[in-house]
């Protein structure tokens, strides 16, 4: 079951892997963007950590936790990734509502809401070489696994694998959205930073689900 502790450790896992991968994400962004994606994400999740550590936010249900994460990202990240990831977490939080325990199906609804929010705001479709290219396959794989009777850990593993595949698949693409699109054909041959950070988020989810099971 997905409870507040689960969601909090997921966010904590994301925060620490963003720290680890900070420079890598920035290097990816240097190749086809403006060399700040890692810095942006780390600024955002550092703020998120502080927020979640604040006693005032103790005892929040999973949904409100994710909403708080989203609002914090919107308020601290800036750039393209800030509104996008912020909206994703906000929408997911909204979808989860105020339940203390969320079912795998409930988490899926949250992921679907996140994807919808990102696409509404950013108007990117699959193949535009953005975070959407990791997010869509991840959500689909997650849904697919559950619908065929898979467990939450299995669903998160499938989602992580699909996200990483989608991330790698951005390399040969020519960007049609975001900064990388300014490079035109020169954006080909580089992995998209946002798709990479999205894969990190699903890898964190998998680790937490694995621990929750064991």
């Amino acid at each position: 079951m997905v409870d507040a502790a689960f969601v909090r450790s997921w966010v904590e896992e994301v925060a620490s892997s963003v720290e680890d991968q900070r420079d890598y994400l920035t290097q990816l962004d240097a190749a086809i963007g403006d060399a700040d994606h890692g810095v942006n994400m780390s600024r955002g999740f550092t703020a998120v950590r502080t927020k979640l550590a604040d006693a005032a936010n103790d005892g929040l249900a999973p949904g409100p936790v994710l909403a708080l994460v989203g609002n914090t990202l919107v308020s601290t990240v800036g750039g393209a990734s800030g509104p996008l990831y912020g909206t994703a977490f906000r929408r997911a939080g909204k979808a989860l509502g105020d339940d203390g325990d969320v079912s795998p199906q409930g988490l899926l609804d949250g992921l679907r809401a996140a994807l919808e929010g990102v696409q509404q705001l950013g108007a990117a479709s699959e193949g535009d070489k953005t975070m959407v290219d990791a997010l869509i396959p991840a959500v689909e794989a997650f849904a697919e696994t559950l619908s065929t009777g898979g467990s939450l850990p299995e669903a998160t593993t499938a989602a992580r694998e699909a996200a990483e595949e989608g991330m790698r698949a951005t390399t040969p693409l020519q960007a049609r959205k975001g900064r990388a699109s300014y490079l035109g054909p020169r954006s080909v041959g580089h992995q998209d930073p946002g798709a990479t950070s999205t894969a990190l988020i699903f890898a964190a989810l998998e680790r937490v689900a694995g621990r929750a099971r064991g």
Partner: protein
Amino acid sequence: MKKLINAPEDIVTDALRGMAAAHPSLRVDVENMVVYRADAPVSGKVGLVSGGGSGHEPMHGGLVGLGMLDAACPGAVFTSPVPDQLLAATKGVDGGSGVVHIVKNYTGDVMNFQLAAELAGDEGTKVESVLVNDDVAVEDSLYTAGRRGTGATPVVEKVAGALAETGADLGAVATVARKANERSRSFGIALTSCTTPSAGAPTFELGDDEIELGIGIHGEPGRIRRKIGPASELVGIATQAILDDYPFDRGDQALVFVNGMGGTPLIELYVVFNEVAKILEGRGATIARSLVGDYVTSLDMAGCSITLTKLDDELTRLWDAPVNTPALRWGV
């Protein structure tokens, strides 16, 4: 990396404190990262708010003041400001007649301004957003992020600010801003990359004889890499790219803006201006107004951008109107 800074994470706030100490005509909210003209909000006047990543100085903070912006929101280096800043600025400059957002067309800027505009609307402030997208190096397409906002931005901010100063209403100010944008085109050339304080190394590497054509203002590479050539050749390419998209011919009145990217000395910008002037004279167009210097920069990048604005009587009058900002000042 060698920079006159204390720490990469402090550069923006330290610089804001410096602006506050240097310019009594500004009121700087360092904590919320907003630069206001000291007398904002000016009651009855349409407010003008712009913003974007830091690293483009003097844009935007140095363009705040009478006859131009009422407030500017600097983000982290090359990172759009967040909605909170933009909302605070929007409310802080609303003199009761609404606020114009001047937004350079970058995904991040557009989305953050959009969120701020929605929040401001909820709180009862009328907001009109004006998109600046003058960079001809990027082809204009519905299926992409579209053209970037670059050198035309100060021009748009200057004329919109001048009209707002006359008491014109929200719609009129937004309209003249859009007109200035539609009549402006830009093209940028980089001789070097730039080094963001947090990355600590150049965003891209260029050979000793290589340059990038069609760059933006965030240290990103451009459309084409080639060998350097004489100024006449490089300026020819840049100006032609503009003219192919938007011709200037006999009878046209041009505002010629030769902008330094931050690391190129002024003497070279005048060499560039001379080449642009030769081309326009050759076509019979008139250089009615000029601006030469570092206004829309990309940190320490060496290079320049050329912006041509087709003036009409209204735009010329508004360009000539008094302005009093740290970076642009005349008539007062």
